[in-house]
């Protein structure tokens, strides 16, 4: 192996690839070769660095220089200046957004599940092995460690499911291990359906081997010989890297038959999802792997007893698996020392929406929402005011400004009316209408409800209709009560978590932003100017010069002249009659004096 004097790491996650990072990668190889530096400089494709808003990101080691928003055209300059002459390309050291501060972005983070993302080349098994990869598996299998002992170590670590529910992982494995059956299965949930969340995808793209290692360990613990990874078909890069990784692991004998001469056999297959949010629910996911419609089934029986193809099965989320090798390498005590009393370790979040540093981050449990939004996230762009942060996607809720100091763990988030969820975290500013956001999530759950049970199928639809009335100006105060009533039935009566939690976005916004709902219903106003049917056009009379252009283009004859002449103007100003206005916006487009506003 050659010794390189410098390593060029290019982020090739989905976000940066969308901005042509694969071409940047090719250009680096090309220009490095042109300069004859192939033996001195290694160009490495990696997974996500986290600061997606400033992508594509290129990092050059040994000094760790980060270049932001690179384009394929910048590569020649970076090679000539940085790699040949040793001078940094100053203009690419600054982030595209002046309010974005990469130092703050990384300083409060702690990377366990993302430990290898952005550090290793996901296509090379050797790089994973060099970072302690497959060490835990090798130790367990070559010493034939007692599975019960491994399970109790996982229990002791306090690891809870990272897919949203937060069920203790060790207990799940224990149940499945204790059921007697010759055939058992290990499944991985990589059907990341929460819109605005990309944690699992980033792990699969940046560090696929960690999932393979952890699933094989899980298989050994419960006595399973076959695993399935259920991935969204919308993640082509993740699927490609994971299947390449599975092939490499098989070639190296880390999965397959008689692994590490232990006599233990385990193999893995990928199953592609097909765009159904409900398939993130465990029983629905298993029906989908069986090739059926993804309808959930009642529990019990729990999957640990009767799961995939009717056999005992454990199903964990990608991020949960990514923690397993670290826990076994560093010990349960070490892992349990991170986090809060009841939530151990770290959590990965995909931070998005109205925040400066959009990206992927991993924080120790107990970090406050404020630290995430303002320190790591760098605050709200354009000097706008923070309004709320949404966690848990369509099953979660909003955390308002008054609760910004909530320390993040499973129980605290439930206590404030939201939930941990899989890790989507969307920041909203003063321009986001909370009623509209509740409607947005309801539209999603109406679409995604599988239709099997009535409370969810009918309840989500009725709530969506009520919200539509409120946002188009025909809602009444009784509608608010009706929303709460339907929400209770939905929570108590639905078969699976999709329905049980579908009302959360409404309940939490009604709890924290009730005044906005009342305003929509009583005053027929949307203070954020989002709900179009409630918008009103009006003329600022002091800005109106009285030219009358607006009145000429108005198709509804809603604009007439008043008696008022603004100071310094010669002609009387116009006004709009809201009862005649059809809200076409023609007047606003015509006015050259910015005298017409919409609010």
């Amino acid at each position, binding site marked *: 192996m050659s010794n390189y004097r410098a390593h060029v790491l290019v982020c090739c996650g*989905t*976000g940066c690839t*969308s*901005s042509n990072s694969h071409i940047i990668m090719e250009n680096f190889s090309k220009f490095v070769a042109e300069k004859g530096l192939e033996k001195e400089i290694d160009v490495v494709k990696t997974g996500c660095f986290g600061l*997606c*808003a*400033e*992508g594509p990101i290129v990092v050059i080691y040994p000094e760790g220089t980060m270049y932001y928003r690179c384009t394929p055209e910048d590569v020649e300059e970076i090679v000539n200046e940085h790699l040949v002459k040793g001078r940094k390309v100053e203009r690419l050291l600054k982030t595209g957004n002046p309010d974005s501060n990469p130092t703050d972005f990384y300083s409060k983070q702690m990377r366990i599940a993302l430990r290898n993302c952005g550090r290793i080349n996901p296509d090379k098994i050797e790089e994973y092995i060099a970072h302690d990869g497959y060490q835990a598996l090798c130790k367990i299998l070559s010493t034939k460690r007692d599975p019960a002992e491994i399970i109790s170590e996982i229990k002791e670590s306090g690891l809870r499911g990272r897919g949203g529910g937060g069920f203790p992982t060790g207990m799940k494995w224990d149940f499945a291990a204790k059921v007697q059956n010759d055939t058992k299965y290990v499944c991985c949930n990589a059907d990341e*359906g*929460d*819109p*605005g*969340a*990309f944690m699992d*995808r980033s792990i699969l793209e940046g560090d696929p081997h960690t999932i393979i290692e952890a699933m094989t360990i899980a298989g050994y613990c419960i006595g399973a010989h076959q695993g399935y990874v259920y991935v969204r*078909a*919308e*993640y082509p890069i993740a699927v490609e890297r994971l299947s390449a990784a599975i092939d490499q692991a098989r070639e190296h004998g880390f999965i397959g038959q008689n692994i590490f001469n232990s006599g233990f056999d385990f193999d893995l297959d990928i*199953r*592609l*999802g*097909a*765009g*159904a*949010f409900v398939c993130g629910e465990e029983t629905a996911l298993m029906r*989908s*792997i*069986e*090739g*059926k*419609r*993804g309808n959930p089934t009642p529990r019990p029986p729990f999957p640990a007893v009767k799961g995939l*193809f009717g056999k005992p099965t454990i199903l964990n989320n990608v991020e949960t698996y990514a923690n397993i090798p670290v826990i076994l390498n560093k010990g349960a005590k070490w892992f349990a020392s991170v986090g809060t009393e009841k939530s151990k370790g770290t959590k990965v979040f*995909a931070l*998005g*929406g*109205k925040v400066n540093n*959009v*990206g992927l981050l991993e924080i120790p449990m107990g970090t406050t929402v404020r630290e995430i939004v303002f320190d790591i996230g760098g605050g709200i762009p354009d000097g706008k005011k923070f309004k709320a942060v*949404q966690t848990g*996607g369509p099953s979660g809720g909003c955390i308002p400004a008054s609760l910004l100091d909530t320390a993040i763990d499973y129980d605290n988030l439930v206590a404030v009316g939201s939930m941990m969820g899989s890790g*989507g975290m*969307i920041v*909203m500013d003063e321009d*986001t209408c909370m009623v509209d*956001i509740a409607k*947005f*999530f309801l539209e*999603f759950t109406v*679409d995604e409800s*599988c239709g099997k049970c009535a409370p969810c199928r009918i309840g989500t639809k009725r709530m969506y209709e009520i919200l539509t009335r409120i946002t188009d100006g025909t809602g009444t105060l009784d509608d608010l009560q009706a929303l709460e009533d339907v929400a209770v039935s939905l929570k108590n009566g639905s078969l699976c978590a999709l329905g049980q939690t579908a009302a959360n976005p409404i309940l939490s916004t009604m709890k924290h932003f009730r005044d906005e709902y009342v305003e929509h219903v009583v005053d027929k106003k949307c203070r954020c100017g989002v709900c179009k049917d409630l918008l009103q056009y009006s003329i600022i009379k002091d800005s109106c010069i009285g030219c009358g252009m607006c009145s000429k283009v108005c198709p509804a004859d809603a604009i007439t002249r008043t008696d008022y002449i603004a100071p310094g103007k010669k002609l009387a100003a116009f006004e709009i009659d809201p009862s005649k206005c059809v809200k076409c916006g023609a007047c606003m487009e015509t006015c050259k004096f910015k005298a017409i506003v919409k609010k």
Partner: protein
Amino acid sequence: MSIIKLTPEEQATKLEAVLSKYKGQGQKALMSTLQQAQEIYGYLPLPVQRKVADALDVSVANVYGVISFYSFFSLKPKGEYAFNVCLGTACYVKGSQALLDKIEESLGIKSGDVTEDTKFSISSCRCVGACGLAPVLLVNDDVYGRLTPDEIPAIIAKYKEEANV
């Protein structure tokens, strides 16, 4: 997903190859078979559904049931240039609904439809995972990020020129 242009004969041969791989495997192979069949045809018309049902020995009703359940499977063909607007939460709060409205207005069709000449279609999806670029529009495999509605007409004009419309 871009549409692979194949002649009907080529499509039939490719489908045969897929079907012979999964022949007789029943329900558990249904999703994989349909995913590969859709890659060949771009959508899943009834004759294809019948062939899949025969090969796997399941009912056509069952095949249709699975197709209609999953949003990834399509019963309608897509346009040559498929506009796909991300309506995931991160894109939505950054105004992707306005992008969709503008595209519908400019192409004169609604989301979920195809233009008469089958050149353009519009759809929306829930998160492509490029949240750092929000709001995002995909045209086949081309990604457009940090867009405003004002930029839409130029993008459409570019594809119209490509398509000679």
